[in-house]
């Protein structure tokens, strides 16, 4: 459950930083592009 807590923490901090009225979305993926340039 630790990783879920981390994600919740992240979502929360994003919300505080950006203000309550802003629309936010958290997308979970398995593979962030490594940078292919």
């Amino acid at each position, binding site marked *: 459950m630790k990783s879920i807590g981390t994600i919740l923490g992240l979502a929360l901090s994003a919300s505080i930083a*950006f203000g309550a009225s802003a629309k936010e*979305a958290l*997308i*979970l*993926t*398995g593979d962030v592009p490594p*940078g292919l*340039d």
Partner: protein
Amino acid sequence: MLEPLVYYPFSHTNDEGVRILDFQDFEGRLAESWSFDASTLNWTFNLRRGVKGCNGAEFNADDVLYTFTRAKSVSGSAPISWFLSNVASIAGFTPAVFGDDAAKKLGEEVKKIDDYTVQIKQGAPNKLMLPVLTIFGIQMLDKQIMEANATADDPWAHKYNNEVNAPGFGAYCLDTWKKSEEFVTTANPDYYRGKADIDRIVLRRVPQSSTRTIVVRSGQADVAELLTPKEYENLRLARGVNVVGAWGNKNIAVAMNFKAEPWNNTKLRQAIAHAIPYDRVIENAFFGEARRWESIVPTTYPGFSKTETQFSFDLDKAKQLLSEAGFPDGKGLDAFPAESFLLTYPQERDSWLQPIGTAIRSALREVGVNIQLNPIPESQYVDRQLVKKDLQMTLIDSITPFGVDAGYAVQLFFVSPDKGGINNIINYSSEDLDGIYYGRIFNESDDDKRNQALAEAQDRVMADVAWAPVVEYKSFVATRDTISGVTYHPDNQLRWFELKKSE
């Protein structure tokens, strides 16, 4: 975040609510309009005015010139933008750039006519110009930001581009990027198609698909990608979650290496193709959410053709072909090293690839061919598959051609490696196929003639069993039911601008 010159227009919404694009047509993005002069092979792009990037710089012809000059410099570790320009036959983007410094300089082939007009010249007729311009590897960079982050050692700012930011003229601006962990982005208020509906998007990597499933089910995440068929199946029953999908370019194939005995034996490969239990794979591994793959390019792509040659699940036929191959009932195969019979795939996706591999292993055993499943770490897998090309037998699950065209897929995967088949992972080399491709497809501008040649090329590859195609499956995503606007794109990435979130 980047934006293309042109892209595919919206076509329709499918029965699962996914927006589908029209892959036969194009609409202007950073280019507002364009024209093509067949007599000179010149494409003239009229650029959109008033487009602003994340630091306020206005897009113009200098950004296009910068992007192509950088592409031709082949200065990065993976020259994708050069490759794409080469595939589209843009003049001067030939393999000569790898040997000669002078050949790396951009000449008149990409020319600024004025601040909002650019001309790009092809070296030969080629249908892939516009499809290639949609692909992320050749989308437009913000010259001003890139140049500000160039260094003496890295004049084209590859390190910045790979680790800090990919600055362009897209809908979102990057706030922070923790390598291999997360992107935090804010909607670009000046985006030329209007500010995105969702102000801020965090893309986070959570390696375990089971964790992603739990978090989206709990409502603490809005979208979960890359789940297993079983996880999607379970989430369909969850309250507040939508699982939506579309047929695109996802597929499974078994590939055997032409440089390795005994797999360089065509009859043996054909025997394997007849011993794959296609329907069992669809039921056991995909819960019915897959279909037989009847060619070696995606069914949804222009130029696809169901090949005349098809391999049904037929163990008697497989046994007969095994005999003809010189291995009756599998006798004689044990003379080859055990490594020849390892069916290798990425262990990160073991939970859903293993049932597929197990079904294939069981069926092959019935005809006397004993293989073992060999899950290995994805980093090793990718290196062996794409760089060393030494996997003897592999379960392909993630090679998708981003160029939406059968010819693009044929070149990328099946043309001989030394003739342009850069992702020809099994070292397939056929003079017939190369001849059809370069003689009748690559520079053919007549659609009917090109499609006829493409059909022959697909049948050639199928009959040779360069790959044994197994199934195609849908690209799925799980979202909270507050999210709409999911659109299928050939790189299987969401475009965040298209997402809407209701409260």
